[in-house]
């Protein structure tokens, strides 16, 4: 029962064993570190058209075209944020600013109104951090431990329980707002940052559990079996054997959770207290004017400011993200 989990990782029917499976024999119990980021990650893949330069040119052309598609909105946002309002009204969106102006950025950061306060986005940054960090940390740790249980310590019904947990990923969040408010009210943490963190942890843990479970399921049995024979217990195996090799999946999980929670608007607007609103709510207040003058350059600058931390995380940790995924997050 303990073993069966591991075998699911192999897909003999397709005639192709995946990296983890095939490396089961060569990648030995004694060198777990080798398993970390997939073996081929550093070098590139199989070349479709190795010698045809025309073909390669086409490949590059296609990739560049895609890159333009992906970059265009960012380009528009960036240039718009540096234009004056007259410039925006007069020119078209692809044109460069006639005169580069940073005023919109200053305004978005420190002067724009987000309510009766007109201090821009600066204060809300900290609010978002106070909410995001604990929520990411707790849900990731919970996910790691849960994933460890459902992959390594399977018991009767654990598969069913895991499936049950997974359904939690799919519940539309609009559905839970009112009952959640009732529960938070009963617990006495309505409209506190604690309450908001709890909400994010509750609805984030299903995903993190999935990530870790799919990663741990690819870890060779021998590793754990040997440890058990040595008398290592539940926590020892987790802390000494699994945690040290979990780096890649932690990266994936943390990036995913950080993005989800930082970008969340619905829970933030509903469960945060007025003065502890996260930055997405501030962005919404700034961008949405019901009866006021719309300053697109400030809107765009504010949107970029709100997205900076997640963009930064992707830029810096992006390659670990793909590596981490390679290391097993998407399998099973």
């Amino acid at each position, binding site marked *: 029962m303990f073993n069966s989990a591991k075998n*699911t990782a192999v897909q003999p029917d397709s005639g*192709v*064993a*995946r990296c983890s499976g*095939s490396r089961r024999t060569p990648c030995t119990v004694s060198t777990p570190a080798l398993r970390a980021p*997939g073996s*081929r990650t550093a070098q590139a*893949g*199989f070349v*479709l*058209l*190795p010698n045809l330069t025309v073909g390669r040119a086409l*490949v590059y052309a*296609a*990739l560049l075209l895609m*890159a333009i598609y*992906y*970059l265009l*909105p*960012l380009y528009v*946002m960036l240039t718009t944020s540096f234009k004056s309002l007259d410039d925006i009204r007069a020119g*078209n*969106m692809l044109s460069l600013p006639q005169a580069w102006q940073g005023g919109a950025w200053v305004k978005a950061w420190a002067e724009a109104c987000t309510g009766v306060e007109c201090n821009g986005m600066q204060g809300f940054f900290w609010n978002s951090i106070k909410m995001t960090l604990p929520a990411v940390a707790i849900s990731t740790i919970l996910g790691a431990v849960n994933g460890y249980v459902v992959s390594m310590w399977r018991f009767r019904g654990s*598969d069913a*329980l895991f*499936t*049950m*947990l997974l359904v939690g990923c*799919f519940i*539309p*969040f*609009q*559905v*839970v*707002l009112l*009952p959640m408010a009732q*529960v938070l009210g009963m617990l006495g943490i309505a409209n506190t940052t604690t309450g908001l963190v709890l909400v994010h942890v*509750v609805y984030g*843990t299903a995903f993190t559990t999935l990530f870790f479970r799919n990663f741990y399921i690819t870890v060779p049995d021998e590793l754990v079996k040997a*440890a058990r024979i*040595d*008398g290592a217990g*539940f926590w020892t195996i987790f802390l000494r054997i699994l945690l040290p090799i979990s780096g890649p999946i932690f990266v994936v999980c943390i990036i995913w959770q950080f993005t989800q929670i*930082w*970008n969340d*608007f619905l829970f933030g607007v509903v469960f945060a207290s007025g003065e502890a609103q996260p930055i997405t709510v501030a*962005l*919404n207040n700034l961008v949405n004017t019901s009866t006021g003058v719309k300053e697109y350059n400030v809107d765009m600058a504010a*949107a970029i400011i*709100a*997205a900076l931390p*997640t*963009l930064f995380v*992707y830029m810096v940790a*992006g390659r670990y993200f*793909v590596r981490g995924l*390679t290391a097993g*997050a*998407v*399998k099973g």
Partner: protein
Amino acid sequence: MSASPSQGRLSALADRWLPKLVLSPTLAASLIFVYGFIAWTGWLSFTESRLMPRYDWAGLLQYQALFENERWWTAAANLGIFGSLFILFCLLVGLLMAVLLDQKIRAEGALRTIYLYPMALSFVVTGTAWKWMLNPDMGLQKVMNDLGFANFTFDWLVNPDMSIYTVVIAGVWQSSGFVMALFLAGLRGIDDSIIKAAQVDGASLPTIYRRILIPSLRPVFFSVLLILSHIAIKSFDLVMALTGGGPGTSSDVPAIFMYQFAFTRGQLGQGAASAMMMLFTIVAVLVPLMYMETRSAKRV
């Protein structure tokens, strides 16, 4: 790590209940916050709740009203269109980019980051940006007209028959990079030796991709399908920011329908009924997917 026999027995005992104990808080939370709340919503869908929850039984009234509501059917049809196209294009674009990127490409890291970054943005930002780009007065159409293509029109955003497709464009833009990353990871995870063996057998590389590599990505397909269908069914912020469900109600989706009826129109019961329909859809999509996945995993 050596232990005395008695300690070993004790720890073995501990090891038997520890896993369950560790899992139980999450399970309890899931029972209350997912299943309990679904039950609560289910109950409300059988009541005449308006502004606030009321608990008096009212039968199938809300479902009847829901099924008579044309806007609901528009929303449901739109979810069908958006969901299938969004998933299809994300898969195609993601897979294509993954295969292309897997060709020993220079600057692969930079390209990968470019493809991935939309995932870092919130849907509100995506919607706002694309709303600009697709607006006939300010966006692409104007750019093309300024460039001299006077007859170029691209008015999907303001055309009630086409507006839902603009949501597809923006949605694919946001999510296909992530799909690419998953596929690329899958490709990189395949063992070299199989390819080498196939090459020795004289198979051409496109054939290897078609016959060996892509089929072996099947488990990745499952993960991708799960994540994409989850994004599609829940899609709310993106539609809200891009079209607001308009023009008219032409790009309405169930999540917006539910939100407006439950929260802004004071028809909580009706909103709950639509939420239950959404949940049924999710189960209908999810259960076969999960079943297939576990089945393929167990066939060892």
